[in-house]
């Protein structure tokens, strides 16, 4: 399990004391805090005997805090209503809460649980949402993430991304594992084990498959694998190196980088490995393709201008146009789900950091304060960027909000995590 270390500004400290067990997932770092946050009180739901740990309110509260858009109200010593009729809104308003989440868990026959929860507007004293679920213990965390998604959407107007998944590669000694985990880093499942490196995992748009580059054939080959049954096939195994898979939004083809015609160039290929066509030409190095959300444009990294910069080209072919101009090393483009922003890695003064680039204006903002960042990808709701960096000499994964003010760390002792990708 991913282990958590927490560091938080003082005002949050009370929240994090006793109830946070060693298995809590996230390390959350809030920088500044000027942005106005929604204050929400997550009351522990009335518990059932034998329910899993930690509580639903805890898991969902962690989700909300990690987004950087919420402040969790300290519920210690407060009343614990389980139904709307029991709520004394005045005491919650006195604690500064804008919203209140309450609920119950009841044991059902066959090891199932019935979960009811209510989201209440403390100011207007109204009910914003109420849901009930009949779940197994295995669905505990997924239910908590759904609750967080509902709270997030009702209070921000944007969809949540807490029920989404991430993929990453974990290195332990000489062993490589491709893992898929919940967006909070918990519930990791290994989908590929290898004694050779694995890089560049990418979820298909429907989340049912993952494409990746494996070196198990003594050279880089692009595979696609079903996350349902584990069945896999080679998508690109041409002479030379095969790498950098990127799914088209329709999930029917991918962009890949091949060297079969010598230099690293971008090609399009059907998801079954048929129908290869070449997209970029020339003897330069072109790599790291990524489709725009409408599928019309491919952003990629190239050295055609003499240094590593990001370019775009029409997916049907054409003359590439340069996108980044400042600095001598801008690589690994990711595009936001609304198509408005690029995130990429920029080197400045020897430091590799995540940069957010608004395409319309060309304005850029450095989001991170680390030195060895890699592999940015956007949350499905576009509100955060997942990336890899080095901390204490080993690879860790982190998220950062688009304003750069909220950063989190996923960490697990003794292993290197790298090559993250945020999926649906």
């Amino acid at each position, binding site marked *: 399990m991913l282990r958590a270390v927490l560091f938080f500004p003082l005002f949050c400290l009370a929240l994090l004391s006793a109830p946070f067990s060693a298995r809590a997932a996230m390390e959350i770092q809030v920088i500044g805090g000027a942005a106005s946050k929604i204050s929400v009180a997550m009351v522990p739901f009335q518990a059932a005997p034998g329910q899993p740990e930690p509580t639903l309110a805890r898991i969902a509260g962690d989700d909300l805090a990690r987004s950087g858009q919420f402040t969790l109200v300290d519920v210690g010593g407060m009343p614990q209503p389980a139904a709307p009729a029991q709520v004394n809104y005045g005491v919650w308003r006195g604690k500064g809460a804008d919203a209140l989440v309450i609920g119950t868990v009841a044991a059902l026959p066959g090891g199932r649980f019935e979960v009811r929860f209510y989201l209440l507007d403390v100011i207007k004293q109204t009910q914003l949402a109420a849901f009930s679920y009949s779940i197994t213990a295995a669905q505990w965390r997924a239910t908590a993430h759904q609750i967080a998604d509902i709270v997030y959407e009702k209070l921000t107007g944007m969809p949540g991304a807490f029920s989404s998944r991430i993929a990453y590669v974990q290195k332990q000694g000489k062993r490589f594992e491709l893992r898929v985990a919940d967006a909070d880093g918990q519930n990791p499942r290994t989908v590929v084990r290898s004694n050779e490196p694995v890089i560049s995992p990418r979820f298909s748009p429907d989340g049912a498959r993952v494409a990746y580059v494996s070196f198990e054939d003594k*050279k880089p080959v692009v595979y696609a694998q079903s996350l349902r049954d584990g069945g896999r096939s080679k998508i690109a195994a041409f002479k*030379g190196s095969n790498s950098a898979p990127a799914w088209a939004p329709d999930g029917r083809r991918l962009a890949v980088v091949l060297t079969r015609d010598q230099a690293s160039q971008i090609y399009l290929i059907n998801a079954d490995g048929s129908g290869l066509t070449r997209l970029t030409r020339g003897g*330069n190095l072109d790599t790291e393709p990524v489709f725009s959300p409408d599928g019309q444009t491919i952003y990629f990294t190239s050295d055609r201008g003499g240094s590593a910069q990001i370019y775009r080209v029409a997916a049907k072919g054409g003359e590439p146009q340069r996108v980044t101009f400042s600095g001598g090393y801008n690589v690994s483009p990711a595009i936001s789900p609304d198509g408005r922003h690029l995130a990429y890695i920029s080197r400045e003064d020897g430091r590799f950091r995540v940069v957010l680039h608004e395409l319309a204006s060309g304005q850029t903002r450095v989001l991170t304060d680390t030195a060895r960042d890699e592999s940015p990808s956007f949350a499905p709701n576009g509100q955060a960027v997942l990336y890899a960096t080095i901390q204490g000499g080993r690879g860790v994964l982190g998220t950062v909000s688009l304003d750069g003010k909220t950063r989190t760390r996923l960490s697990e002792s003794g292993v290197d995590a790298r090559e993250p990708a945020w999926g649906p």
Partner: protein
Amino acid sequence: MNKIFLPVLLALTLSACGTTPDTQATVEDRTGATATTATAAPAGGAESTGLDGAGVAGSALPSDQYAGDPRKDPASPLSRRSVHFDFDSYVVKSEYRPMLEAHASYLQSKRDARVILQGNADERGSREYNLALGQKRAEAVRRALAVLGVSDAQMEAISFGEEKPRNEASSEDAYAENRRTDVVYADE
């Protein structure tokens, strides 16, 4: 011997002067003098080296002195397998010419032999970009061997990027060691 080899040297020198460095063969001649003194290894892989001026009266070793695989003969340039590159460079330095000539001769003499040219990069920066940089280093060696007459069918240039570092440290020395192309025979 030079009759055969001079056209090759000319080709190497010309391509080193090419105007588009990314698309031309990149065996570089930085000394000028080494080109005329380079010795092609005889087919079979054992190379004799003159050591004159040291005042030692040596006698030639019998040619069958090394009985094993000629590619493993420590006295042969065929046993040399690594081409190192300067920082941000994809040019094969002239010091690797005797080694590459020996491998070219061996491959021309054994048409069923295949080599994998494995490019590598140091760990700084993007993994996929480094994979492509390693490929450039592998391609540089592939082109140098092609200029020396090795057929494309006998060669495959691939990259390990930063994924299989020979030296796992994060130091300039380690980076230099990892900016490398290895010549690996498919049957080894």
